[in-house]
């Protein structure tokens, strides 16, 4: 700070000596300390405070006392409230994106909470199921005969069965092709179907699984017909085996 000149110090002494007239009331000082620039007659009151050492000292004491006030309760300011609102909104958006139907999330069951709709089996149904068309690459006895005169084809990887919907394509667990029991012919397929118990309706035979109505739990269950074991369908993502 630029040091005051002797003349200025003398002015200050005289200002202080003459400034004690018309001191502010206690109420005016309290209002000045509490409301600051929005207190009534701020300009007049502050110009007196600037001159009067008494009122200035009392105002300082008021502010010092308020500075000692213990803060026991946590109060949210506007920034705190905005921060919390932003965090909740971000969590909601993130949750929506992650748990959206059809989203693959590492660590979560594929397919999410959407259950695959399966037609209810018609009881006593005996007519054969439509046989899936064999792909051109698939080797059947007929094709073997037809192609016997042709040079030995290169080994072709078994074709993946055509999926009903690309939406569920990802939800199906990948199964090695050699594990799938694929009927070689229409006759074999009919035998397969006929060997199933009553209640059998439809299945992706190509993948070695059938659906059956589990009368005990009243649900359609996947059944591994190779093992003859009925596994109750799990709710909420338990249909991943289908």
């Amino acid at each position: 700070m630029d040091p005051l000149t002797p003349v200025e110090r003398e002015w200050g002494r005289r200002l202080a000596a003459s400034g004690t007239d018309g001191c502010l009331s206690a109420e005016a000082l309290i209002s000045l300390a509490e409301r600051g620039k929005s207190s009534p007659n701020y300009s007049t009151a502050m110009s007196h405070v600037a001159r009067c050492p008494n009122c200035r000292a009392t105002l300082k004491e008021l502010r010092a006392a308020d500075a000692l006030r213990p803060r026991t309760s946590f109060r949210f300011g506007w920034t705190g409230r905005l921060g919390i609102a932003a965090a909740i909104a971000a969590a909601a958006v993130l949750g929506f994106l992650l748990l959206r139907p059809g989203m693959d999330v590492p660590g979560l069951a594929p397919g999410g909470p959407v259950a695959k709709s399966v037609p209810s089996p018609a009881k006593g149904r005996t007519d054969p199921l439509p046989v899936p068309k064999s792909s051109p690459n698939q080797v059947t006895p007929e094709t073997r005969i037809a192609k016997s005169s042709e040079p030995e084809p290169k080994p072709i990887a078994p074709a993946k069965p055509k999926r009903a919907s690309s939406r569920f394509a990802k939800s199906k667990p990948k199964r090695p092709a050699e594990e799938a029991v694929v009927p070689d012919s229409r006759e074999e397929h009919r035998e397969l179907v006929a060997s199933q118990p009553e209640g059998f309706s439809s299945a992706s035979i190509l993948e070695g699984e059938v659906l059956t109505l589990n009368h005990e739990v009243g649900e359609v269950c996947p059944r591994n017909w190779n093992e003859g074991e009925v596994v109750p369908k799990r709710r909420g993502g338990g249909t991943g085996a289908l």
Partner: protein
Amino acid sequence: MLLGSGQDSEGTSARASGEFRPKAPPDRTGGTDALEDLLRRERPAIERYVRSRARTRDDADDLVQNVLLKAARHFGDFREECPFSQWLLRIAINEVKNYYRRLAGERIESTDAWEEENPAALQQSPSQACPTLHADDSMVAERLLEAMHCVCGEDETNVISMVYQGESFEEIAAVLEMKSATVRSHFLRGRAKLLAHLVANEPDLVGGAEAIRAAAERAACSDAGDALDMAEREALEANDANSTVFRSACVKIARHLPMPILVFAAMEATWIL
């Protein structure tokens, strides 16, 4: 709200006129009526202050009761160096401070204990005590304030007044709710404007034209790094208070002005004559 605490029956008229005038002390010998009257008048403000700061209503009642008891006990020590309402408020502030410290689990300091036992000490600190108001003090102060209002803004006037009375920039910043850098710039700008105005228009407040000329000559040959340069000398000749060069020259001259006691003694002698 610029009113004092009229301390006797005449205080009502002083309050009505919106002006505080020092009054004769209330009748303290038979003074229960006078004291009761004062306390009844000032109690609502004190109660409002304490209630908005205490945690519970019971705490607030206890604090108000302590304040009133201390005021009654030490009423004889009240020297009227400040209005009664401010004295009562200072006692209340001390009570609230001690209350906060008790809440925080602090041990109350000995100075507070001293003040608690001596509310008379809350009236004014010895450095602030100016019991006699000289007419010449008021006259000089009034002329200074007029000059400040003439050339400075409101904030600059307030800042200059407080800096001249020895307040630091930080203290002023707390009182005026400003940054201390803002306070400093207000002071430097306002001070230059005030000194330039006084040198150009009211030289008697700074010792007269002769004293200014002598100070200018000393400033011109100063080796302290604040010597007047050529432009500042020319600005002094032009005597234009609105020129920034003239203002900086006046700030340098003010450092070389003669002893103020001699200056004001000569000035007062001139006024008397």
